[in-house]
């Protein structure tokens, strides 16, 4: 009797283990790392017959060579990644085509850059963003950029310092030379009533600065989108103008010169803080752009002594003028030419005057160009550097 029970007990135990092992494997979704094609960056272009051309930068996993230095990375095109592309009606369709040509399963989890070709950008991007939000693999933190020409060619670039175009673009975006926009930010901008967006614009480094055969992508200005379509471009200088109000101005050198004086002073930006202050008075909409900036002197080629508080004051005034001039430049471009509210004025008005905003939401396109923009810039020169000006006057003495 006792023995039979013991046998039964072991039997049930085995059954339990068997059952749970069947259930716990999760083998339907098993993917080993060597079954995955890691995508580093994706590019979208306009293809033939209204198709989408999807290009991907695929990582080539290779064991690291021990002690041999890095012969591979200097070996030109045989780097650590390659570019493939395919066309389809939608991105998902193109991805299925792409998958046919790859032995491994496409994996988006590591894709940190999404490039959009300028032709597709002009045609419209809002439909394509859906894929990046809906699919559960791609990161919504990926940076989105617009490429001059085809996105595919930009992905093929082999930068000197970085391993591939993906890292190159990511690092440039991170350095706050231009605007930084992630998939999430782009969607946020597009879903707002004003329906405008700004994306960094990628161009090749001009051939004067390097070897002619190579193409190295860098960020040069920004692309402006309205209703999901690219409507215009901002130059490098204009982009600096929108970086201030967007609170993205992190580094930069401002050079000022004075009328009637030889030489100029270059100042390095330490930190800046910006605020948009909307107001509606008697039906008149106005916006004050408040900027606070701290700077330090990098170079002084003038005869001024920077220990003189009057000189500092003069210089600060000049810097204020310079900053406001850039902002004014871009504001006229945005308000008069593009009618694109990429600084989020609409948002500010909505937050401060929700009731007035609700009544005027539909007329925003008419209101925006008429908004009176004023500037309120405060600049403080914190340090004047490690040396003073006396070495220049040494000859006089």
């Amino acid at each position, binding site marked *: 009797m006792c023995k039979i029970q013991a046998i039964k007990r072991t039997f049930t135990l085995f059954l339990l283990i068997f*059952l*749970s092992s069947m*259930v*716990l494997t*999760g083998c*339907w*979704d098993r993917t080993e790392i060597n079954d995955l094609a890691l995508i580093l960056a994706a590019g979208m272009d306009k293809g033939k017959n209204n198709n989408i051309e999807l290009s991907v930068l695929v990582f080539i996993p290779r064991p690291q060579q021990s002690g041999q230095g890095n012969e591979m990375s200097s070996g030109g095109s045989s780097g650590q990644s390659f570019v493939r592309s395919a066309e389809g009606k939608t991105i998902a369709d193109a991805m299925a085509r792409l998958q046919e040509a790859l032995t491994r399963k496409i994996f988006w*989890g590591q894709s940190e850059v999404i490039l959009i070709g300028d032709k597709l950008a002009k045609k419209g991007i809002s439909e394509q963003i859906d894929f990046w*939000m809906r699919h*559960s693999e791609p*990161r*919504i*933190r990926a940076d989105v950029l617009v490429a001059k020409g085809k996105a595919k060619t930009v992905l093929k670039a082999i930068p000197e310092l970085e391993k591939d175009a993906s890292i190159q673009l990511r690092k440039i975006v991170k350095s706050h030379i231009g605007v930084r926009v992630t998939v*999430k930010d782009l*969607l*946020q901008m597009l*879903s*707002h009533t004003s329906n405008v967006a700004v994306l960094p614009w990628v161009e090749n480094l001009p051939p004067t600065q390097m070897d002619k055969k190579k193409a190295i992508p860098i960020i040069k200005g920004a692309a402006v989108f309205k209703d999901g379509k690219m409507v215009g471009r901002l130059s490098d200088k204009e982009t600096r103008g929108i970086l201030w109000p967007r609170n993205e101005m992190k580094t930069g050198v401002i050079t000022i010169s004075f009328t009637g004086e030889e030489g100029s002073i270059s100042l390095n930006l330490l930190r800046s803080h910006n605020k948009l202050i909307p107001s509606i008075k008697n039906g008149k909409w106005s916006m004050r752009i408040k900027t606070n900036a701290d700077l330090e002197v990098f170079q002084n080629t003038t005869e001024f002594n920077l220990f003189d508080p009057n000189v500092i004051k003069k210089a600060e005034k000049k810097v204020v003028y310079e900053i406001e001039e850039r902002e004014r430049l871009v504001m006229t471009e945005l308000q008069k030419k593009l009618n694109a509210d990429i600084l989020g004025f609409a*948002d500010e008005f*909505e*937050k*401060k005057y*929700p*009731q007035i905003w*609700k009544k005027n939401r539909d007329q925003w396109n008419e209101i925006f160009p008429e908004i009176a923009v004023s500037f309120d810039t405060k600049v403080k020169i914190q340090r004047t550097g490690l040396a003073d000006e006396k070495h220049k006057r040494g000859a006089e003495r």
Partner: protein
Amino acid sequence: MIEKGRISGLELALIMYATVSATAILYIPYITAQHAKRDLWLSPIWGSLSGFLIVVIIVILSRYFPGKTLIEYCELILGRTIGKIIAFLYLFFLLHDTSIAFREYGEFVESAFLHRTPMLFVTGSIAISCAIAVHGGIQTIGRCAVLFLPIVFVSYVLIYIFLIPDLNLKNMLPIMADGVLPSIKGSLAPHAWLSQYSLMSFLLPLVTKQQKVMKWGIVSVVASVLTMVLMNLGNLFLFGDILINLQFPVFEAARFVSVGSFFEHIESIIIAVWVLGGFIQLSAFFYMVVLGTSQWLKLPSYKPFVLPIGFLIILFSVWTIPSFEDMIRGMGTTVPYYFLTIQLIIPSLLLCVAVIRWKKPKSFMQ
């Protein structure tokens, strides 16, 4: 009494917290945002009304009938036939609710990770592990709650701490641009979730210190409401207006974490940790169904029914909800009314009759 084990007040509060909040943090933001838009963080505050009301009703009822659960005193209050019918209604609802909870768990794991794995295997495997916990009795579940929930809690707080640089507090403005109504409309789902505090009736007789039950119940409701409010706020600060498009904002938030470009892609850990919370929730539901069934049938033990009822729950989770979209739509429209009728109206009815027919208990309120 069927159950021999006892739990402390803290364990009661934690089990109830998991029962309500584990799936609430996943599904509430999306459903609430559909109506409330930017005011979605206000909705759980309105929803807390039903939470508090139900806790008070259930605790008073348990003072009238110490040591008895809703299924048992239903018969005492309403007489044998009507009592049995009402108790069955409640029990059927509980089974349905449990199957919805299993389905919510399954749908989340499916849409986040295991796209190809059939749902039955996801829900089935958690059901087997829950069955073991249920077989172990309430003490097992209570201890698990004390062990696991702090981990879950800390990991969720950490997500939003890591996201601080990306949070934009201005997303919350303007508050109540369209008046209070949208946030009240959006509070339908939080009402439904918080009304699940009526399930506390199954645990109350098992608590060691009966005098502190009210306090722990209220603490648990406050904790759940705070969790929902803070989760909604965190998601709002991160995503702003696009929050209404995201089905699992918490998951998206975990995916968004990136600290110093090396601490990234932590969503798998987050899911693994969340499963701990889900396990407590599902075990508690499962336990209540099993206990309720055997009490309804007046049986001396519940252990033989753990596996058959587990099987029934899985069947129901397949049967009652045709698809994910149906589930989400239901949660935003009809299901909350169903939850409220069963969980708010039945207990208040019982309380009314009890007040009229029974003498006030000596230890009414401490």
